[in-house]
């Protein structure tokens, strides 16, 4: 329990209306999109860096665990306060401070919703490339803390590639700032690399300067179906191998597509063993040329149908189905477990085969979606957690999938993070010295282990 003194000190910082320890409120902050839940002892809504710093000073003095939280859309348990303590929720630090298109940066508070930033940039003809499926509700702070990715990361890179500068409050309450507004900056250590993706375990992000880029003048999307999953996957590695770099290549298998169609009724290709959604962008002439080349490769791999969408509305319709996937699958069964193992792109066909055979072997309901162009697979399994026997199979299957990915020189997570979900599997891809080293860094920055304890390291 929070001591009376600690509680008073915290309320003195935020005022009563931005502090809560009422059970009905705490419950709202006890879960994310993963399976675990844990009740914090209090939730606070800071509005400034100064408040965050003061809160951390109190937390440090009383050794109270502090878990930052954006929108709580994490799928790995990262924002769950497993050691209780306080949740620092950033929904009230949601201002876009500056957008500067000539110099191509935006300065934001961490609670800004990714989609809000996109909407603010669009009229200026700019965008922020990281586009997690959750972009309409997840926060920039959460995106940075988990180094989120999304479909168009294939061409544009992940969140860390767009962080120019950060303001971070350390466990001690000290505030640090590093980086600048410059794309090129080699002054001192690249601390942004360390804090980006650190899942709130090293410091609390209070301000971000992000790189933004001009919108491409045209984009074209292809929806392609195959009657064999092998050909589907092979097309992916062939396209990348040919030297074309599309914005995105998304793969959906039959199980996934049927689930989508049942929910969305959009005449989706439910018969296809595999479907690819491919987007290219850039200047018009080169888009057309790339589409031609891609079409050749698809035909060589025996594509059954190729539908081309040039109009924005048509493209959006195709993409809406893909973005809806996660929510739809959650309805197939009481629980859905989705992972995001990543393999080198030439191993995509092998990994898809191996995921399918594992799911088949355990007689589970599931399949695979993938940001296939960069090898980021999203195998998913739908099951009922209360069915102990079935759940044991789910866990065994995922363990196999992780092991297979590691054997193919892959990694556990391409974008979702480690959080609670995967800590136990770290040894598969990281040797002991390296793991020990992560802990050493964590200890140096947060000696009392108050920042999001129990995660990542």
């Amino acid at each position: 329990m929070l001591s009376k003194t600690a509680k008073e000190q915290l309320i003195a910082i935020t005022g009563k209306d931005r502090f809560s320890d009422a059970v009905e409120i705490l419950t709202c902050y006890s879960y994310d999109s993963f399976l675990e839940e844990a009740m914090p002892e209090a939730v606070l809504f800071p509005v400034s860096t100064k408040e965050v710093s003061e809160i951390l000073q109190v937390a440090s003095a009383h050794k109270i665990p502090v878990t930052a939280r954006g929108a709580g859309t994490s799928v790995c348990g990262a924002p769950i306060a497993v050691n209780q303590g306080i949740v620092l929720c950033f929904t009230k630090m949601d201002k876009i401070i500056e957008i500067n298109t000539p110099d191509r940066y935006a300065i934001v508070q961490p609670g800004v919703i990714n989609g809000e930033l996109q909407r603010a940039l669009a009229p200026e003809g700019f965008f922020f490339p990281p586009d997690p499926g959750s972009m309409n509700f997840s926060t920039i702070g959460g995106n940075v803390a988990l180094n989120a990715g999304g479909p168009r990361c294939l061409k544009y890179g992940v969140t860390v590639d767009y962080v120019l500068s950060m303001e971070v409050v350390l466990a001690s309450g000290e505030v640090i700032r590093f980086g600048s507004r410059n794309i090129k900056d080699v002054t001192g250590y690249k601390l942004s690399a360390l804090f980006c993706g650190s899942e709130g375990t090293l410091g609390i992000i209070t301000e971000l300067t992000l790189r933004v880029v001009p919108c491409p003048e045209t984009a074209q999307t292809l929806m392609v179906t195959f009657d064999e999953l092998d050909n589907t996957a092979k097309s992916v590695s062939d396209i990348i191998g040919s030297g074309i770099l599309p914005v995105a290549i998304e793969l959906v298998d039959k199980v996934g597509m049927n689930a989508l169609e049942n929910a969305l009724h959009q005449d989706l290709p439910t018969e296809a063993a595999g479907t690819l959604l491919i987007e290219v962008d850039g200047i018009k002439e080169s888009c057309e040329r790339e589409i031609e080349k891609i079409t050749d490769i698809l035909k060589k791999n025996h594509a059954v149908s190729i539908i081309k969408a040039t109009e924005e509305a048509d493209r959006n319709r195709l993409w809406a189905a893909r973005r809806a996937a996660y929510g739809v699958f959650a309805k197939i069964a009481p629980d859905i477990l989705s992972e995001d193992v990543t393999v080198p792109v030439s191993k995509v066909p092998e990994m898809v085969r191996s995921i399918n055979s594992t799911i088949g072997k355990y007689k589970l309901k599931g399949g695979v979606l993938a940001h296939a162009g960069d090898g980021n697979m999203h195998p998913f399994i739908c099951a009922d957690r209360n069915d102990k026997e079935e759940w044991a199979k789910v866990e065994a299957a995922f363990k196999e999938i992780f092991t297979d990915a590691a054997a193919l020189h892959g990694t556990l997570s391409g974008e979702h993070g480690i959080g609670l979900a995967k800590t136990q599997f770290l040894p598969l891809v990281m040797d002991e010295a390296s793991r020990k080293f992560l802990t050493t860094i964590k200890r140096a920055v947060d000696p009392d282990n108050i920042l999001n304890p129990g995660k990542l390291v």
Partner: protein
Amino acid sequence: MMDSNIIKKLEEIVGKDSLTTREEDLHCYSFDGTGKAYLPEVVAYPQNTEQVSNIMKLANEYNFAVVPRGAGSGMTGGAVPLKGGLVMAMSKLNRILEIDVDNQIAVVEPGVVTGDLQKEVKKVGLSYPPDPASLKYCTIGGNAAECAGGPSAVKYGVTKDFILGLEVVLPSGEILHTGARTEKSVTGYDLTRLFVGSEGTLGIITKIFARLLPLPVHKETFLVESTSLKAATEMVAKILNANITPRTLEYMDKTAISIVRDKLTNPPPETVEAMLLIELDGEETAVLAQTERMKALFAGLEDFTIKHAQTEEEVNDMWQARRSISPSTFNLRPNKISEDVAVPRSRIPELVEYTEKLAKEYGLIILTFGHAGDGNIHVNMMLDRSDIKQAMAGKKAVDLLFKHAVKLQGTLSGEHGIGISKAPYLTFELDETTIKVMKSLKQLFDPNNILNPGKIFPQTAE
């Protein structure tokens, strides 16, 4: 001091023929591109990771400094053995271990020369874009340690954008593997990017997993002359915002132009205040389409003349202007202070205006040129150090330049790093708490401060 006992142990680790203490050899490893020199006590040439690790263990036991060194082309004193000790030369760790064409990855040892890697991957239709001007001799290890950039950064990014993973030997001798062979990985803290740019102070890079790209098949080169520097830098923004993505967007100011004038077949008229060198690359249709757009942007503008190279000779001639700047500067005065501040692109005219003011006030000749596309400006101050007044003026001007760059929301260094040259100025840009955190990382990685000591952080504060 390193006694004969230590030398003997080092010989056991790397072999007798991979170590030297001869004075004339030591001199060769005492300086880098800055010209500052400090003599090491021994130079060792390890041939594998295990030897590197054993040297570090020995260094911890006997407390001697170890300074990793690539080609020694660094511009900020990074490879200079400030505290004596051992220079670890990477010239025998210079193999390209693998080129994985399917996944577009190269696995290399740190001593591989950047240009050699580029040549090898070109043979299989791939490219390694980072192109520091020193690429014919600098090493991938040195590039990684400095996070080197080059003209192509405006389109492709800098070294950090092309490193997927590393093998690193920590000061303790422990061997660490960071990153992955995949494009995306968020498994654990991102140590790869922390080691990149750490100037050999956190660990010794022994293996690099580099990301490759398909080789661009087509190229077009342009030289733009402008009668207004401001109009020229504004044009840079216009080009980039018109969905044109050049691989090179270099500019040079009028002082820079004046010193290369006699090297050009077609020197620009005296009224020209700035020149832009622009190169487009990629797939042919895309390059040609962008060429049309770019010409359209310049059409009818009186301030500008755009020349489009039609032959390889003309291309070389255009590059000649840019490439001759550095060597020609010494015709002006015998000594040079060369800085590489970066500012947000729209602030370039303000920075250049300020350097003109500095030149006037302090009696220096200052020229600016460089990577206009990403705001990374090379400021060369020419002076005669034997004239004590000029030497003092130079020092003062550098001080003011850094202050002004930071005031313009810029940074001390866009690509050369901090090393020893810029360490005294670190506080201009980073506050004390931030420096403290960086130093605590250094302390954490290297508690005995044996790895490349005396770099990055201001000495007084230590």
